[in-house]
């Protein structure tokens, strides 16, 4: 039997490394020959179901039932598909939001968000075609794309960069302000060559001010600690 040079514990013959610190067991008097006997069989964990994959099929079926019923009712009553398209498109959108996160073994935020963006664009296109066509290309599509790209950018930064919570908060606030401005610009009723910002100033200004305050607090270690000390829950 050997001792762990790091922890001081005696290690059973079954151990190649110390289970407490990971240091390799090296005993010149007892060199390792062949595979060691193991206390437990060396097999993968059986039956563990990571995520909620087995819920995908029941949830998909549950969503499909109302879609089929509404499509059938619509077809049987009016001989064509009209109002049921709205139900089908809405449930389809909900399916894109719900099913991929359930199906994925590990959470892939960017992939799911990209899928959601595509689904929203598709949904808006269907709405455009079913109501009064014309607003999708000039307003719906660019607004959705801009908001989607901003949200994806934020998600990418949060995923890949190690940002402090206050920086994240500031970025979210700036993005929210910018999205408001974009909505304002694209929905402005007066077509003009000049860029005129109207109501979006009201959400933009507090968002920017709060974002700057968050960044300033983030830079000041003393202030951060003081706030933590006063407001911890």
């Amino acid at each position: 039997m050997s001792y762990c040079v790091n922890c001081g514990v005696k290690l059973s013959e079954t151990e190649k490394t110390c289970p407490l610190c990971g240091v390799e067991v090296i005993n010149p008097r007892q060199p390792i020959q062949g595979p060691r006997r193991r206390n437990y069989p060396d097999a993968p964990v059986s039956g563990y179901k990571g995520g909620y994959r087995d819920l995908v099929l029941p949830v998909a079926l549950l969503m499909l039932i109302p879609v089929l019923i509404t499509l059938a009712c619509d077809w049987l009553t009016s001989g064509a598909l009209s109002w049921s398209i709205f139900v089908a498109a809405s449930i389809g959108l909900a399916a894109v939001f719900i099913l991929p996160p359930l199906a994925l073994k590990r959470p892939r935020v960017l992939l799911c968000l990209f899928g959601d963006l595509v689904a929203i664009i598709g949904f808006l296109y269907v709405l455009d075609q079913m109501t009064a066509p014309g607003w999708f290309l000039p307003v719906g599509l660019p607004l959705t794309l801009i908001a989607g790209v901003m949200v994806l950018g934020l998600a990418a930064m949060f995923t890949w960069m190690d940002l402090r919570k206050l920086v994240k908060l500031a970025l979210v606030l700036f993005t929210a302000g910018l999205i408001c401005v974009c909505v304002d610009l694209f929905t402005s009723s007066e077509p003009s060559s000049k860029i005129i910002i109207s109501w979006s100033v009201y959400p933009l200004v507090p968002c920017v001010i709060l974002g700057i305050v968050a960044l300033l607090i983030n830079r000041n270690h003393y202030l951060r600690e003081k706030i933590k000390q006063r407001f911890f829950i």
Partner: protein
Amino acid sequence: MTHNHPRWMRLDNAAKIYPAVKKRNWSSLFRLSATLSEPVDVDILKKALARMVPRFPSFHVHIRRGIFWYFFEGKDGSPEPLPDSCCPCEPLRPEENDGFAFRVRYYENRIAVEFFHALTDGTGGLCFLKTLLAEYLTIKYGVSIPRDSAILDCDAPVDPAELEDSFLKYEGIAARGRWEKDSYLVRGTREPDGFVHLTCGAVPVEVVSSLAKEKGVTVTQYLVAVLIMAIDTMQCREVRLQMRRKPVKVSVPINLRRFFPSTTFRNFSSYVNPGIEPHMGEHSFDEVLKAVYHTMGFEITEKNLQAKFTANVRSEKNLFLRVTPLFIKTPLLKLAFRLFGDRKSSCTFTNLGEVALPEEMKPYIRRMELILGPLSRNPVGCAVMSYEGNIYLNFTRVITEPKVEREFFTQLVKLGIPVTIESNQRC
């Protein structure tokens, strides 16, 4: 001999929570195992199991959903022994075990039984394992093993007292509230494939008991104090600001049969949560020991324990709760478990004590162990059992970092206790 079993049984007071809070990847399990001197003969194990399971009617059941409560329904046959897996206490899935709420596993020289906590507690489980071992040894070697209340005679009729819900029987007049401060939560990286790490430390009983005697405490109190110190040291390292440090408490299950004359094989245990408040300042080992000694001394009295479980019995008897359908009751029980369960302690430390076996069995049994299954919120649990001069401390962990065990065992080494470690770590 055939035993007349009740066709169905209510779950005992403590068991009611377990099926409700069970998740797809988690169920409250514990495991008792014995390492034999020779490799296990699976055919004989099957025969022994088939012979002894009917003697334990409260184990010979599967769990069913009623309209208002879960209940046990009697089952025929016995479960097939299964080869052991890489990690102990994998979640129990009824479809994989013929519906039984316990499973028997074997690996090389080891026989292990994993119990769903709704069935029994450590005392009932130990009696089941001992009886299984006695039957196995009788069939294999023809040894005659004396039977008593700890190793049952499989031909004797079932005593109704073995099946009683002792919580209801010994319910008191006064009830005690469950409110306690939340405890520090050990954090770490969860294993993506659900692997459960097991680290077993064997320490000599005489060294630990002499150290405990020196300090005027019991072995359990001594080891609980070391565990609290280990978790406190970790918290001090992780949380710099003293004011933000949370209480470090360890949940210690208490066998109520020591205080009430019950012979039930169903759940009949309570718990105490001794601990310290690190936001008040740094604690020395002696201070922790004193806190544990006094908390356990005050809490572990017949009156206090009775008042504690009486509160649970009152909840069970509450008319409003009783008439609430199970599908509404289940989320309520889940909420209660979240509020008053694991979050009140940082870790669980259960000690079944010294296992006594008849002299006739000792030559065939090399080692006996108790293992706690993963806990619902806390990532680390510790189960202890002594056999033939050694205390086996089994840590179960669902995070990759072995920081609690490392701190605990290195503190034991610093206190002069020799520790031998083995694990189920992957190659």
